[in-house]
């Protein structure tokens, strides 16, 4: 992929820069619209919780040779086993598995579920050992949900402390947590809009998204911190420019990471959909797939822009911006003297001058200000 490598190089050297920070109002608007859509899904349609949360029974018959007319046959078997086949959902999962779900089989007891299992095994001509049954009492789901929410709150608290300590600024912790909340809300919104079932495995997926989303944001913020520290030292970039440069520099990494993380998850999804049928593996994979995609989006388009929005009123940041503007004004006059090369987008967005122009400018500067005591570009060498 030479073009992709070239793209990475250009982002790094500043020949090409995407103005993430400058257009932050656009991203905020876009995100706002997406979140409203998610909220409409969440509060309008609601979430589709799986059997584990509602209580009920599920019987899966594997290795069925002849699946013809499976719906009717399953109904018959259930009817003969417990006397009624009302409220039955019969589905075919994968190629050879028949799933029978019901809010209540017979008396709603695990013994009746077992009876149904035996009847289904007989009906579909498989050994009793090929049947998997699941009986879930009605109060099970609430205890799972309760635990998950508790874990979520504790995790967020610990995370806020860890990030504040590590980055030594609360703004980064806040921006990271907002991005996190966005990821979670948006992913859950996708579930509400599409009506995909939420199982306990999906809940695990949601919790993992938190870790992943933060991980992604931390990597970007680490670069932001490095760049802004350098900017403060040299005074050649505003805070927004330094942050934008960081996002651009880590963009290739973000894309690579997301692709690498999504590849195994996509593999699970494909295997899950075509071979396994619904289960822990598929539910987790689907949740992570959405979560990682959304997490990558938020670390680029929300976390860093928000960080800049939060900090740009701070007096130290204002001071840095003032210095950087003065520096860039003087530099642009030098660049104008050097002439020849066209203006690059990186100059205004990230405050980076592409190497060829920088060299030309340096040469021009050298001739023009040979007698000056201090070279105006000298600070660039400090790193």
């Amino acid at each position, binding site marked *: 992929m030479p073009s992709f490598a070239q793209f990475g190089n250009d982002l790094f050297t500043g020949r090409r820069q995407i103005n993430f920070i400058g257009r932050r109002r656009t991203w905020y608007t876009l995100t706002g619209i997406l979140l409203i859509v998610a909220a409409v899904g969440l509060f309008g349609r609601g979430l589709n919780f799986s059997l584990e949360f509602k209580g009920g029974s599920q019987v899966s018959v594997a290795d069925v040779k002849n699946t013809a007319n499976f719906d009717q046959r399953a109904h018959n078997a259930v009817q003969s086993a417990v006397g009624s086949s009302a409220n039955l959902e019969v589905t075919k999962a994968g190629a050879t598995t028949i799933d029978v779900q019901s809010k209540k089989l017979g008396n709603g007891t695990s013994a009746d579920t077992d009876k149904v299992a035996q009847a289904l095994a007989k009906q579909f001509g498989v050994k009793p050992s090929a049947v998997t049954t699941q*009986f879930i009492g009605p109060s099970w789901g609430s205890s799972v949900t309760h635990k998950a929410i508790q*874990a979520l709150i504790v995790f967020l608290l610990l995370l806020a402390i860890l990030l504040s300590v590590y980055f030594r600024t609360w703004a980064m912790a806040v921006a990271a947590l907002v991005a996190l909340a966005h990821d979670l809300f948006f992913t859950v919104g996708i579930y509400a809009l599409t009506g995909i079932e939420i199982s306990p495995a999906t809940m695990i997926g949601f919790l993992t998204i938190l870790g992943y989303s933060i991980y992604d944001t931390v990597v970007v913020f680490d670069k932001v911190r490095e760049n802004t520290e350098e900017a403060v030292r040299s005074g050649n970039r505003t805070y927004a420019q330094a942050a934008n440069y960081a996002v651009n520099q880590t963009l290739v990494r973000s894309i690579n990471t997301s692709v690498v993380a999504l590849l195994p998850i996509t593999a699970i999804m494909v295997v899950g959909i075509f071979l396994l049928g619904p289960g822990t593996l598929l539910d987790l994979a689907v949740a992570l797939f959405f979560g990682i995609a959304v997490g990558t989006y938020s670390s680029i388009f929300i976390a860093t822009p928000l960080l800049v929005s939060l900090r740009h009123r701070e007096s130290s940041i204002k001071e840095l911006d003032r210095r950087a503007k003065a520096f860039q004004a003087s530099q642009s006059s030098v660049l104008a003297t050097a002439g020849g090369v066209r203006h690059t987008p990186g100059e205004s967005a990230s405050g980076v001058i592409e190497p060829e122009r920088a060299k030309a400018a340096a040469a021009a500067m050298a001739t023009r200000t040979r007698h000056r005591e201090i070279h105006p570009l000298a600070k660039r060498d400090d790193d």
Partner: protein
Amino acid sequence: MATRARRSSGVGPRRILTILLLLLVAVYAGVAGASQWAHPKGKWTPQLGLDLEGGRQITLQPIVGKGQQVNAGQVDQAVDIIRNRVNGNGVSEAQVSTLNKSLIVVSLPGNPSQATLNALAQSSQLAFRAVIQTQQIPVPAPSASSSPTSSGSATPSSSSAPSSSSSAGATQSSTKSSSASPSSSPTSTASSTSSGANDVLPQAYRAATSASSSASASPSSSPSASSSASPSSSATPSPTASQPARQLPGARPQPTSASDTAWGNMPVDTIWVDNGMATAGETYTQLFDAFPCTQAQHAKGTPPVANWHEVAAQAPQDQPDVGCDATTKYFMGPAEITGKEVSGASWGQTTNQQGNLTNTIAVNLSLNGAGTSAFASVTQRLMQYSYQSDQNRFAITMDGSVISAPGTQSAITDGQAQITGNFTESSAKTLANQLKFGALPFSFKELTSDQVSPQVGTDQLQKGILAGLIGLALVVVYSLLQYRALGFVTVASLVVAGVLDYGLVVLLGTTAGFRLTMAGVTGLIVSIGITADSFIVYFERVRDEVRSGRPLRAAVETGWSRARRTIIISDLVNFLASAVLYVLSEDTVKAFAFTLGMSTVVDIVVVMMFTHPVLTLLARTKFFGGGHKWSGFDPDRLGARGVTYAGRGRVTIAERKAAAGAATAVEGGEA
């Protein structure tokens, strides 16, 4: 010995690699050692969880009345008792553990019968209570026509076997399955009929034991919508009318013994009031009248029958209680002997007066000292009443239901009691076992019950591994495309991480009982992406350094010092997430969090001790250090060619290459 030789010759990165090798050797030596000497012997494959291995897993929830609390000590005690019972049944490799502090998870390999499972969780609160009053349960008129479904299988009184009675119940319940929980609607009592196979285990047990021989119309199998002639609907008002004066405080004669009928005028215990079965101030006589033994006796507007029986099982020992067997309702005095006073239990056929074995099966109890003297005084007291009168009898109750209520002919002073209920061999054995291993602090109901077929489990595992391999292959292809030869470092690192992960899972399976579940496998697959990301962060950093003009050897070092910080903080965040999940969650989530956390640690180890040293070594080679086209560090591809303004004292690789190209025209000519 080979490692020692390498160590002595190596420096820096080689030493680190050696330490990693020793670590790997140590893990696998542990696995090998466990497979040789550990008890039970370890294996070379991971211990599989139930969802992959197949078997039955049930989650049990303690049944506690309002205002009662379950404490951790009681739950631990219950776990121990259940474990003893499992082992007493000869089930190997069963696991009993707690969940969410109050739930108990029992995992059994294979496909154990429902009766076995029920017996495990049975509270087994044994009590000897003196009978004060009894009442025959009227045999309900058969009213099959009231069964609203088309299936005519619900013939009441057809059979007494618990299985068929539950199918009769099934027919009814399907009429309107409006509520799945028995407590939510008092009218939907169909779910809690007879069968006992409903959520409440003690009920199931009761049905299994008491119904086994009473072939006469087992009242429990009757449909709910039967006669209104059941006494419960009309009985309540009459006693109240006749005894208003006795309800005045102080006017009640205090009971003098456990058999005293004065108990009937005492106000009921708060547990009945709290559960909505009586109003405050009502007497036990009123409670006795209202208490429904069967669905037929159940009055509309009161809690479901099952709830009455649950509360009866939990009634305080020092208070009277109401209970039923198949034919009779009993009003009983406070418990005088409990399961604690039982020192041993066995079962066998009874002998008749001639000393010959009979067909009756009995459970024999040996009482300890306190129990013996208490039993002697009880039987002496009961002798005062005429033989076979109500007050001559004592009821042996198990979890609130009456197993048997023999009359007393003579005082028993040797502490040997014999229970002859309607036992079969297996139910007698079960009861004897339960008595021997002690009573659980409370009854449990089945919250979940999953049966996983071994076939399906294996299938899941195989396909999960397939998914993992496909994912791994995709990651490998992508890294080779992106990072050229450097991609092989990624692959090698992933292999090392995989080998370490596998070893740890096997070792923990043997030493700490860790079992790999589907969620755990998923955690491992997901970690492929996270592990690979560490390499990406590292490689991108090194490339950044090359782009800004550093020679590769220096770039590897400076890139590492910057990437290390990022990798550590991001792994720390990940580890924090999995640690929180691990501590706060249960069961499947825990397994997932565990493998994710473990692979995060492995990731740090591999990046620090494998990827970085290997890259350092590779940077010394001509292929990588010289920035070969396929090395992934080619400065030309990385755009370093243009970086001629590199600052003071910096010589870029491109410049050196150009110089070398000019001098020798061997390499870098095409640059």
